[in-house]
């Protein structure tokens, strides 16, 4: 038997595969297709203090190897989640991460407090990186100072493990990572979507109601992987890697680059049983390579004979 268990900033996972926020609903939607108990973890759709309508349609557009979205964090609100969804989620043996966002630091703090009072939540993933809302969201994630301040305030408000989710739009993502680590984050997840755009040439109008939206999917994997590698070298708290993961080999790339766990997002749309297939693939790989503990893989990138660009 190979050991696939990892620990993400105080949260033990039976395996390192987590369903990413916004691509797995509140988890329950997938139960007809997939045994949720098989997953390492689930990050639920981003929650705000109050129910949130989201952006007008059209909200999505396919691009080559990826998709743009401007959902705008439509959600049922933290209270409805606690009342309607959480009780059902408690029936599963899987780590539940609640993805939270606010328009002000105060909002983030209040959601964090609210969730701290409840049972059945493994940790919070703080979305300081959503490109699809005007106030708050990404604005907190672009500059180290803002990100650090927000982390500090939420840290004070809750004893739940904190995973801070970073945006690739940050001018220097490693700086942001170091700062939130310094302010008490237990782990870091990256990346959120890349700000992109698509135009309908027949109408000369943007294909998303919000003009720009977040790019996700296999298309962004090489950039996301590079960022995870850079950040993992700079911080000592666990890094959770995501961005375009759509096979067990993709997942392994992120872990070899230094990620302690991975999240699977858009790939859940392409193939609703993707998470299970990735978990299975990782186990088979470990067996074939006679690696008995996945931790031996983490950060095992072999750079002999390589150098970052010759001159």
């Amino acid at each position: 038997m190979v050991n696939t268990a990892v620990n993400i900033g105080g949260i033990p996972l039976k395996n390192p595969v987590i369903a990413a926020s916004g691509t797995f609903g509140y988890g329950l939607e997938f139960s007809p297709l997939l045994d949720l108990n098989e997953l390492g973890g689930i990050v639920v759709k981003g929650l705000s203090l109050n129910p949130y309508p989201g952006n007008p349609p059209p909200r999505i557009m396919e691009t080559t190897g990826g998709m743009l979205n401007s959902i705008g964090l439509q959600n049922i609100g933290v209270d409805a989640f606690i009342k309607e969804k959480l009780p059902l989620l408690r029936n599963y043996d899987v780590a539940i991460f609640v993805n939270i966002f606010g328009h002000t630091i105060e909002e983030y703090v209040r959601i964090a407090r609210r969730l701290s009072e409840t049972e059945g939540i493994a940790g919070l993933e703080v979305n300081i990186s959503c490109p699809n809302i005007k106030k708050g969201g990404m604005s907190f994630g672009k500059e180290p100072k803002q990100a650090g301040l927000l982390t500090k305030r939420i840290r004070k408000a809750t004893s739940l493990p904190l995973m801070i989710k970073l945006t690739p739009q940050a001018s220097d993502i490693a700086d942001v990572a170091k700062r939130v680590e310094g302010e008490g984050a237990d782990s870091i997840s990256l990346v959120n979507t890349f700000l992109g755009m698509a135009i309908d040439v027949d109408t000369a109008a943007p294909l998303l109601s919000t003009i720009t939206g977040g790019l996700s999917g296999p298309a962004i994997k090489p950039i996301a992987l590079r960022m995870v590698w850079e950040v993992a070298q700079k911080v000592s708290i666990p890094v959770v890697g995501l961005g375009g993961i759509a096979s067990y080999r993709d997942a392994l790339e992120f872990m070899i680059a230094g990620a302690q766990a991975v999240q699977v997002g858009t790939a859940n749309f392409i193939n609703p049983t993707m998470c299970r297939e990735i978990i299975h693939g990782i186990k088979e790989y470990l067996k074939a390579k006679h690696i008995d503990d996945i931790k031996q893989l983490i950060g095992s990138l072999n750079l002999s004979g390589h150098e970052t660009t010759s001159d």
Partner: protein
Amino acid sequence: MGKKDASLFMPFTTTTLKKKKIAESSMKDSKTKIVFNQEVAPACFRMVLSGPFDNFIIKSGQFIMLRLGMGYDPLLRRPFAAHRFKTTEGTFLEIFYHVVGYGTHIMSQMLPGAELALLGPLGKGFEFSDTLSAALIVAGGMGIVPLRGLIYSLVESGIKNIQIFVGAKSASQLLFLTEFRRMDIPVHCATEDGSSGYNGLVTELFRRFLDNHAFKADNHTMCFACGPRPMLAKTASLSFNYQLPCQVSLESRMACGIGVCLGCAVKLKRQTHHDQDQKKYGRVCLEGPVFDAKEIEW
């Protein structure tokens, strides 16, 4: 299959009857194989899929998501209405698709033998009670596809008065006419180029019909519509004027098809959901694709 396929057009048999007895099956992701994929009207293809469909009960109005190939381009599955039918050769699923862009173009190039992943059945289909006395079917373009299944169900439940209104750009794009006529259902055609039937929009044809017939504003008469959004909006407003209940099947870009991505949202009238903010939008893939026309913010 070439020759044999004419037979595949025959009206549903026991299948559809079963549908109303058996509860619709819950969605699953299945491997299917293309057994037929040919152009049956200009830019309109018929694809027949074989797979584990014996317990696959799909209601008219419901849909499936097809993965186009095994790569990531195109990335997202595409939604299509689907009919199940049986022949001596087995149980098949058939879809009719219009080539409108990248994905459907790639589909049109696919050859029999190719394998496609299929997720379904998905969404909420058309609803009607056996007390229904008259059904007014209004279809624009490919909108007739999901309605075709409904028509068979209506016939089988013994609903006598069925009126079909179909519109298309041109006569060559009017689908299933012979099939409907074979069933002695009155079909009112409209074409934008006047090549067949009324020269104009199907909604105008529908309006004239309503003007000349008196329907009681009760649940014994129901409109069912599918087609381009403007055509649906017009049909909805006509049904409001004549106080007829109306079910519309909407389309929207989709990523997941199962209600998690929130990408397929359509604006809903607030009051219909006691003004809860998060209910301002409905998911075509879950609350729909068939909606009560009154729910939609047109």
